[in-house]
C-alpha cells in the first residue's frame, strides 16, 4: 500500500490540490474553465515534455526557454514565406541546437547545465539579431489561414488541447515503445551498465538533448501562434514552471524513473497551483516565488540520494 502511494504520489498531489482548491471556491470545478486552463498551458506542457527527456537521463536543459524565445521570432518572421513548413523547420532548428548541446556535453564532458546555458546564450543572441531586438507580429492572414483552427474550440474543448495530446502520444510512444526510449531508460537508470551492455551511451544522450531542443522549439511555435507574434524574451518565465512540472511529476534529477506521463500530471499540478493562486487571490507577482519554493520541495522528495555519493 505504501509503495503504491509512493509511486503514485503525483496523482495524489494533483487530486488533493483539485479538491482543496475546489472546496475553497466551487467555481473551480467548472469543466469548461478547467479545459480552458489546460488549453492555455499546452506550450508549457510541450516544453516540459522535452525537458523530461533531458532530466530522464540525469541531465538538464537550461536552454529551453531561450530556444522557445528564438523560435517565436523565427516563426513570426518566416510564417508567411514558409507556410505550414514553419513547423518542421522550427522543430529541426531545435533538434540541431539541442543536439549541439548534447554533443558538447558528451564529446567534451562539459556538464549539461553549462552547455545548455551557453547554447541558450547563443539562441538569445540569434533572437535579438533576427528580430532587431523588438517585438514582431505575424502575418495575420497566413496565421489565420494555416493555424486559425488552433485558437478555436471543438465544443467546449480548446483545440490546442488536441495539439498537446498529439505531441504527448508521440512522446509516450517514444518512451514506451521505441528502441530509443528503452535506451534512454537504460542510460538513465545505470549509465555504466548501459555502456557495459554495449549501448552507444553518448549517442543516446545527444538524442535526448536533441528531443528536448526540438520540443522546446515546438512549444515556441505554438506560443507564437497563440500570441500572433514573437520577441526575444517573450517566453521568459517558462523555464521555471517547466522544470517544476517535470520534477513535481516525479521524474527526479537523478534520472531513470518517471517519464512523460509524470510530466503530464506535473503540468496539471502546475496549472492548478497557478489558477488556484488566482482563485485564492494570490497576486500574480507571487507566482515565481511560490514555484521556486515548490521546486525545492519537489526535489527534496524525489531525488534518489543513493545515486549521489557526493552532492556537488
Amino acid at each position, binding site marked *: 500500500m505504501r509503495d503504491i502511494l509512493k509511486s503514485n504520489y503525483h496523482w495524489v498531489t494533483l487530486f488533493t490540490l483539485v479538491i482543496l482548491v475546489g472546496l475553497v471556491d466551487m467555481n473551480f470545478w467548472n469543466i469548461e474553465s478547467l479545459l480552458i486552463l489546460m488549453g492555455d498551458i499546452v506550450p508549457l506542457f510541450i516544453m516540459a515534455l522535452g525537458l523530461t527527456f533531458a532530466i530522464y537521463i540525469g541531465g538538464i536543459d537550461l536552454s529551453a526557454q531561450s530556444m522557445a524565445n528564438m523560435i517565436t521570432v523565427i516563426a513570426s518572421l518566416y510564417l508567411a514565406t514558409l507556410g505550414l513548413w514553419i513547423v518542421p523547420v522550427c522543430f529541426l532548428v531545435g533538434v540541431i541546437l539541442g543536439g549541439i548541446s548534447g554533443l558538447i556535453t558528451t564529446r567534451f564532458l562539459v556538464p549539461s547545465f553549462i552547455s545548455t546555458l551557453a547554447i541558450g546564450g547563443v539562441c538569445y543572441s540569434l533572437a535579438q539579431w533576427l528580430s532587431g531586438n523588438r517585438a514582431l507580429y505575424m502575418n495575420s492572414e497566413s496565421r489565420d489561414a494555416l493555424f486559425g483552427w488552433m485558437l478555436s474550440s471543438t465544443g467546449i474543448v480548446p483545440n490546442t488541447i488536441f495539439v498537446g495530446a498529439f505531441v504527448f502520444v508521440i512522446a509516450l510512444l517514444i518512451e514506451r515503445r521505441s*528502441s530509443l526510449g528503452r535506451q534512454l531508460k537504460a542510460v538513465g537508470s545505470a549509465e555504466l551498465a548501459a555502456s557495459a551492455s554495449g549501448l552507444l551511451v553518448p549517442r543516446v544522450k545527444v538524442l535526448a538533448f536533441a528531443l528536448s531542443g526540438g520540443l522546446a522549439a515546438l512549444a515556441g511555435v505554438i506560443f507564437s501562434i497563440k500570441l500572433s507574434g514573437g520577441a526575444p524574451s517573450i517566453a521568459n518565465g517558462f523555464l521555471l514552471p517547466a522544470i517544476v512540472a517535470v520534477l513535481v511529476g516525479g521524474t527526479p534529477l537523478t534520472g531513470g524513473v518517471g517519464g512523460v506521463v509524470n510530466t503530464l500530471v506535473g503540468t496539471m499540478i502546475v496549472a492548478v497551483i497557478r489558477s488556484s493562486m488566482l482563485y485564492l487571490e494570490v497576486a500574480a507577482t507571487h507566482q515565481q516565488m511560490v514555484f521556486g519554493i515548490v521546486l525545492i520541495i519537489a526535489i527534496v522528495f524525489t531525488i534518489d540520494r543513493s545515486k549521489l555519493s557526493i552532492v556537488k
Partner: protein
Amino acid sequence: MLEFKNVSKEFGPVKALSNINFKVDKGEIVGLVGENGAGKSTLMKIIFGAYQADSGTIFIDGRQTRFTSPRDAMSQGIGMVFQEQSLIGNLSVMENLFLGREQEFRRFGLIDFKKMAEASRAQLAKVGLDIDPTIETSKLSFSQRQLIELAKVLTLEERISGDLVILLDEPTSVLSEDEVGLLFEIVNKLKTRAAFIFVSHRLDEVISLSDRIYVLKDGEVVDEVKGNKAKASNIQASMVGREINTEYYRQDQRLPFDKEAAPLLSVQNASVAKKFEDISFDLHAGQVLCLVGTEGAGREAIVRTLFGMHSLDRGAITFFDKPSLKITSPHAAVSNHIGYMPRERKIEGIFASMNIAENMTSSQLGAYSRYGLLKKADELKLAASWIDKLSIKTPSASTDCIRLSGGNQQKVVLAKWRSTGSRIIMLDHPTRGLDIGAKEDVYTMIREMSAAGIGLIVIPDTFEEAIGLGHNITVVKDGRAVKNFNCMQEQVTPFDLVSAMT
C-alpha cells in the same frame, strides 16, 4: 598497548570476524596476512574506527575503550596510512599535513603560513623527508607522498597523550625495491615512537619487517608466529587451511573441450600501461579460464581490455581467428558476441529500475525492434523462456530487477549474455555476495555454458571456485601472468595458488 579480545563482526548472515584475539605491544611491528575475504580489511576497519565490532572488547593500555569513528580512533592514538593515498593533490604539503587543524595556526583570522611551514618541517624530519613544505603535493613522487602520509599520521604524537599505533595498509604495492627498503628503514627507526600494524600480500616483506605475524582465515586468527621464526611456506599453509579432495571441488563435473580447434580468443603479449604487461593465453570453445590474483593485480583490467574498455598499448588480441577484427568499444564487443558481467553488479551489471525482459534485451535491441519500435511481445517471450531455463524466481517477466534477490539478478545478467548469443563470456566475481544455494546455481550455469561451447574467463571469488571450475588457471601478480596451471593434467591446490600469488 592495543588489545582486542573476542571481537566479532557480522554482516547479515555472514560472519566476517569471529572471536578475534589480537594485540600490539609498544614498539612492536605486527604483520597481518590473509587471503582476499579472510577478514583483513574488516579487522583494519574496526581498528581505525570505520566499523564497530558487534561483540568483544577493545583495550588501550589495559583500559577498556571503543572507537566510534575514525576521528575518535585517531584521538585515542590510532593512525591509518591508507593504500589509496589520502592526500589532496592540489593542496601544498603543509596544508595536507594540517588539514582540518588549521585553527592551530590562526592569527587575527588569517592562517600564519610561516608558522605552519616551520611545524611542517619538523614533521617531515621525522620521516627523513627534506622537501619544501609549500610545494604542491601532486608534484611529488608516489613514495614521497606515502612518507608525507606517514608524517601526517605522526602529527598525532603532539596531539595525544598516549602512544601511537599506526596501520600500514599495503604500503609497498606500488613502490620500487629501493623505495621499499627506505620505507622499512624509516618504519624501523620510528619503532621508538609508535607501534605498527603492517598489512600486505607480499609475504616476504611481512616476514622481514614484522616482529610478530597474525594469519587470518575465514574471519578467524588461525596462526600467530614470531617474525624471526616465520617461514613463508608455513604461513601459506595456514592461510589456505584444510586440504580438500577432488570431490569437494566437483572437478568431476568439468567437461573436456576441443583443444585442437582454432581458439575463440588468442592473446599475445598484451600490455596496457600501468595495468598489466605481457599477458598471453588462448581460450577455446567450452574452455573455462580462471584468473587468480590479489586485488589490483590487473585481472579486471585484462577482462575490460578484452571487452574494449581499455585500449591495448602493445601486443595483439585475435578474436575468432579473425586478425582483422578489432574490439575497440563495448559496443563492438557486444555486436561480436562477447559478453561481460562486471563485478559491481548494482552499478554496472543490472538495471535495477528496469524489468527482467528489459534487462535481457538491453544488449540486443536491434533484434527486438523494427523501424525503431520495440517488439514487446517477443521480449516477454524471450524473458519467459529464460526464466524457465534458469529457474529465475520472480512473479513475472515484467518485474523490476530491484525486487529480485542477488542470485536471481545474476541469472538475469547471464541470461542477457546467453540470449544475445555470446560466444565468449567474461565473469568478474560472479558469486560475490550470494548465499550458498545461489552460488551453486551460478556454478551450474557456468558448467552449462561450457558444455554449450562458450569460452569463459572467470575471475573467481575464492580458490575453491577457481579449482572447481577452471580448465586452466592463470595467476596474475603485479600485472604479469606469473604462473599457468593446467587443471586437466595436474591437481592444483589452493596452496599452489597462494604460493604463486604472494
